[in-house]
């Protein structure tokens, strides 16, 4: 059904091109987009841009997730840390990453540092808040039971709190991974000379709108692939392993 919908959309798009009657700069046909895709591959541009974007994305996601998990556990377990950091985190969460990118450019210049910081910023908050939620909703009964058996604080963390928080962490990762894609496009438009975000921007700048659409499609497909092949199986694995939450697909 999904494939049929896509094919129908492509057919409608192709048929509408002569009816609209605008040039390929304003309204490229699917065949123009396929041609642009082939051209970008032939000229070696797409593989380099794709590799650069994925490298930045993974580095930002890994760093942001590590900091978010550590911060969520710290704030969730330590009341003083929670009181001290919560207002600041709420304030920073309200400032979108796009607002930070120009400042990062001033501080770190155009290039990988700025992009990495922007991605870390967008991934950090959803991971932190979901980890925090997971840590705070860890069953107190289990914590007390493990403590009564003589477990140390580290053992309580390892045996009860982290497993309880795992579905929350995975949900945070999934949300953060999605946000990171948007952050990547913004950051590459402003601060990079390579990457899929840059391709999207540069395509319209050089009046090659079909290239922009190739970039958009690649972004969409990348996200579908990451979600389908990595995030969903990881979520399912944690749900099955720990059995603490049930997703909509399992209920059906």
């Amino acid at each position, binding site marked *: 059904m999904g494939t049929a919908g896509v094919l129908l959309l492509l057919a409608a798009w192709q048929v509408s091109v002569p009816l609209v009657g605008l040039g390929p700069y304003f309204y490229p046909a699917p065949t123009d987009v396929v041609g642009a895709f082939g051209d970008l591959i*032939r*000229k*070696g*541009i797409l*593989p*380099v841009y794709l590799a650069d974007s994925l490298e930045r994305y993974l580095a930002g996601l890994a760093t942001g997730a590590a900091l978010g998990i550590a911060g969520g556990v710290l704030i969730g377990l330590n009341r003083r840390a929670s009181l001290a950091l919560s207002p600041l985190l709420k304030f920073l969460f309200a400032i979108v990453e796009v607002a930070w990118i120009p400042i990062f450019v001033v501080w770190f210049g155009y290039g990988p540092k700025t992009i990495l910081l922007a991605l870390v910023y967008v991934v950090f908050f959803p991971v932190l808040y979901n980890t925090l939620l997971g840590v705070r909703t860890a069953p107190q009964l289990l914590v007390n039971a493990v403590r009564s058996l003589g477990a140390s604080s580290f053992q309580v963390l390892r045996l009860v709190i982290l497993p309880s928080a795992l579905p929350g962490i995975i949900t945070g990762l999934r949300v953060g991974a999605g946000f990171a894609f948007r952050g990547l496009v913004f950051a590459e438009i402003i601060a990079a*000379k*390579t990457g899929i975000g840059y391709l999207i921007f540069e395509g319209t700048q050089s009046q090659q709108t079909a290239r922009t659409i190739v970039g958009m499609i690649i972004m969409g497909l990348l996200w579908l*692939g990451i979600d*389908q*092949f*990595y995030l969903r*199986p*990881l979520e*399912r*694995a944690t749900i*099955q*392993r720990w059995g603490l939450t049930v997703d909509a697909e399992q209920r059906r």
Partner: protein
Amino acid sequence: MLRLPVLASVVIAAVVLLYGAAGLLGERHKLAALAPLPPRGDYAITLAFAPERFHQLLLQDQGRLVEVRERTVYMKDVAPAALRDIARAYWVASIVPWSGP
């Protein structure tokens, strides 16, 4: 349970390895006639198409780009490692020594 991520990672790793191997084969083929490479050399690098800004920026990182004429980029002071990097790109059709402008 995590078979799908492992399988996807294996496929990605295989594609990357094949890409790298194809690049190495291309490098050997394109540089076979130039061995031994001097410490710094001047070369005419012909692409399979007219170079875009992307290619010029990439080549600029590897040496001194002097001139672009149709499909050929003329470069000076290219180190052997940089030349090997250039030769690995599948869009580079041929590399020949250049005696200068």
